[in-house]
């Protein structure tokens, strides 16, 4: 399964860095006196040009990171660092799962975060600043004074060695993805092949984020259906599902329940997850039945109103509802309903549901604990 991880600028940035760092390394080592390749003068000219190009690229990259909020990807975290290291040392040989999932909102593992951040705030600035000093303060009797180039040269060289070592490790570690080449392909096309479990986790994560954002906006905005459409569209775009695969298929693999009801109110399709949430043994048991089975009679009235609105073309986030399962027990989920369209005509209603029973139970428990705690505190006269 493929998901869209790297945006155009990100890929461009990455490959320009590859090009420039290679040019800088090859010419830099020549300037350092290791070999003769381009000729000293050309090596210096290419090195200086590449260095300035790199500076420009960095300026654009900084701008991009802050406007897109992508800088958050580099907030360091010690969580799971140990697990990640252990994975590379032992787990990878045993076929263990990656300890972290790649998500659009969190595309680096904690080890990557630390190392990339180190590169961005330590190595690149040191190499850059010493490089500029090399270029412009190399005859230190003009303007600013440097006692000599020793220190500048030493730091610059040290930074270069560090970068070379980083690149060796970095290139090698790209082969540890889902398949050996999937990370490199992703950096070229933007689409990364991931295993199903990661993809599912990601879809759910994306939808939750989208729904949360929508909820927050619904409180203030009026045109609700438009906003929801937009949120869904954003999710789809971020995941790339629209381009690559049918929304339904993604949802089918996501753990979210999917359903489609025709104009008469009869289930035409539900997925396994839906059937599981309603405690049916298989989707077949549901298909052909009327959708009133999903609610208690009182709540069905409300659903019917929504259903009719959707048939008129609105997309409606229903928020949290209570479902009635086959065995009569109840559960909780959020539901979003959207018109099912075929040949430009609304032929019914489709949507997905996300189970919130566990969360509600947890919230309930939390509340109970809170009450109990307050009681205890009150008894002890602490309040």
């Amino acid at each position, binding site marked *: 399964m493929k998901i869209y991880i790297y945006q155009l600028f990100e890929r461009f940035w990455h490959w320009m860095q590859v090009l420039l760092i290679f040019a800088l390394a090859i010419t830099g080592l020549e300037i350092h006196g290791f070999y003769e390749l381009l000729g000293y003068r050309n090596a210096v000219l290419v090195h200086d040009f590449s260095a*300035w190009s790199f500076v420009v690229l960095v300026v654009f990259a900084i701008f991009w990171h802050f406007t897109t909020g992508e800088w958050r990807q580099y907030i360091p975290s010690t969580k799971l660092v140990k697990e990640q290291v252990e994975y590379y040392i032992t787990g990878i040989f045993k076929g263990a799962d990656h300890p972290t999932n790649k998500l659009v909102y969190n595309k680096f593992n904690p080890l990557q975060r630390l190392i990339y951040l180190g590169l961005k705030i330590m190595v690149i600035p040191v190499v850059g600043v010493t490089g500029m000093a090399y270029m412009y303060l190399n005859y230190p009797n003009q303007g600013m004074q440097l006692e000599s180039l020793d220190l500048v040269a030493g730091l610059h060289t040290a930074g270069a*060695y560090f970068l070379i070592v980083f690149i060796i490790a970095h290139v090698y570690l790209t082969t540890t993805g889902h398949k050996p080449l999937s990370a490199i392909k992703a950096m070229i096309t933007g689409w990364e092949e991931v295993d199903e479990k990661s993809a599912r986790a990601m879809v759910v994560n994306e939808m939750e984020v989208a729904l949360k954002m929508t909820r927050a906006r619904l409180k203030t905005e009026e045109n609700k259906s438009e906003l929801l459409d937009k949120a869904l569209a954003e999710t789809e775009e971020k995941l790339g599902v629209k381009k690559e695969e049918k929304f339904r298929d993604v949802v089918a693999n996501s753990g979210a329940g999917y359903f489609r009801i025709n104009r008469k109110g009869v289930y035409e399709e539900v997925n396994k997850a839906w059937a599981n949430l309603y405690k049916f043994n298989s989707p077949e048991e549901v298909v052909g039945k009327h959708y009133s089975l999903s609610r208690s009679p009182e709540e069905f009235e409300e659903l019917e109103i929504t259903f009719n609105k959707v048939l008129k073309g609105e997309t409606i986030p229903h928020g949290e509802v209570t479902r009635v399962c086959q065995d009569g027990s109840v559960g909780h989920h959020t539901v979003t309903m959207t018109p099912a369209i075929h040949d430009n005509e609304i032929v019914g209603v489709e949507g997905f549901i996300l189970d919130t029973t566990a969360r509600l139970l947890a919230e309930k428990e939390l509340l109970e604990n809170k009450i109990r705690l307050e009681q205890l505190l009150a008894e002890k006269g602490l309040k």
Partner: protein
Amino acid sequence: MKKFIYLVLIVFFPCQLLIASEAEDTDDQKAIKLVNYVRKADRVEKKVVDHSKFPALQQEFARPQDVTLACLSCHTERHTEIMSNNHWTWDRYEKLDGRGEVSVGKRNILNNFCIGTSSNRETCTRCHIGYGWKDESFDFSEKENIDCLVCHDKSGIYKKEPGKAGYPFEGINLNVVAQSVGTPGRANCGVCHFWGGGGNNVKHGDLEEAMNDCSTKIDVHMGTNGEDMSCVECHLTENHNITGKLYALSSENKNRITCSQCHTEEPHADALLNKHGYRIACQTCHIPYYAKANSTKMWWDWSTAGRLDENGQPMHESDADGNHNYLSIKGSFVWDQNVKPEYFWFNGLADHQLITDTIKEIPVQMNKLDGAYSDKGSNCKTAGCSKIWPVKVHRGKQPYDVVNKNLVQVKTYAKNKGEGAYWQDFDWEESIQAGMDYVGLPYSGQFDFVETEMYWPLNHQVSSADKSLKCIDCHTRSEDGRLASLNDFYMPGRDSFAWLDNIGIILIVLSFVGVVIHGGLRIVLRKNCLHDN
């Protein structure tokens, strides 16, 4: 794809601008940037004076002094100018560290060629612009003793006679000479400046007879197939005050000629090369070799002098190129051609080993050039700070006073035997005594030979740009690098920190080994590594 191209353009457009702004004027630079100079081809030259028409120069001249008086009858006050010129006084008072203002002129200073002019005036003053300086009785205030002709003769027939204290050969038609006068040409300057030290190109290495008529391969400025510049086109002269000097006979940073007086401080189209000019003299790159036409003397060992042939007569031996490598009167020599200069930091100041100075280091440095990498910025001793200069180093052995620990003056020249001159009697004891008596300094009676070095910063025999040094000539780890021995500073391409390089290389190797081991294990254990799907 379109988007990608836009991105490339947007990100690299500023870079292009930057590079373009640094490389502006590139096309104009095909023509060399010049100021304060009009090319020969663009000049209109008219002869406005014809000295042959002056009656004063048509009279019969009994003595060469009469020519001088004839000159001064029109150029009435010119003698005052020339009489304060070093070419007349052979004195140059300049400050030396710890010794105040002393004369470092030709009259007193020692070198490691013929050692010194004192006690040998009669022959040395063949290169004095005067008549009759054979001993200290010479009257420097007598204007008729000025030799105008040696510098201004354009007939080519005027020559001073050896051992005649500056007088010309007898029988020269002085009317022809006097009527030919004009601006000094290279032959006028060259007769002394090419032949100093007793032979062609002995001293400078970059000034020699071949430059009377050479190609631009020998000297890009003087080449007669090129711009054909004469000496005074750079050594600009007004009121007989000739600019330029060399540190064999001077120590202060003044009255110098610079390349930039015509070529500007930023002669290159390439900013990076112009920046090199902050610390590197133009000469360093643009005079890659000297003594390009004829050999120059690199080594002069007085200690072997005095070997006579079976008849007790002085003799000479020559090397394969026909240069003397042994003379009984002077000792042994080493000559060399197309010589790579040695390189030194130099800030325009030089010290001198005076005859009165105690020898403190061996080899004795006759005219130590001042300068260091650290002589820069606010540390600068002179306006220009130290720059790297190409230098001819002339090494040799010459006599010194073992007890008093100072160099000695030697009387080398005399017309006859028995006057204590080394070249007649081959007796060191006596000739040193005679030399030291002449300058009025004590001599212990004990001498030996000591190694000396003399420094000649190079300025001539400039090569064309395409023959100049290339980056790699200095920026190299090779032992043959031009700056291999000038190591009081860090230079990219030559220098590195061995420990840092070692650590870096070890880290790189280790990471490769790590990759191979880790990757190898993954391949060996790949069954485990396959995921379920």
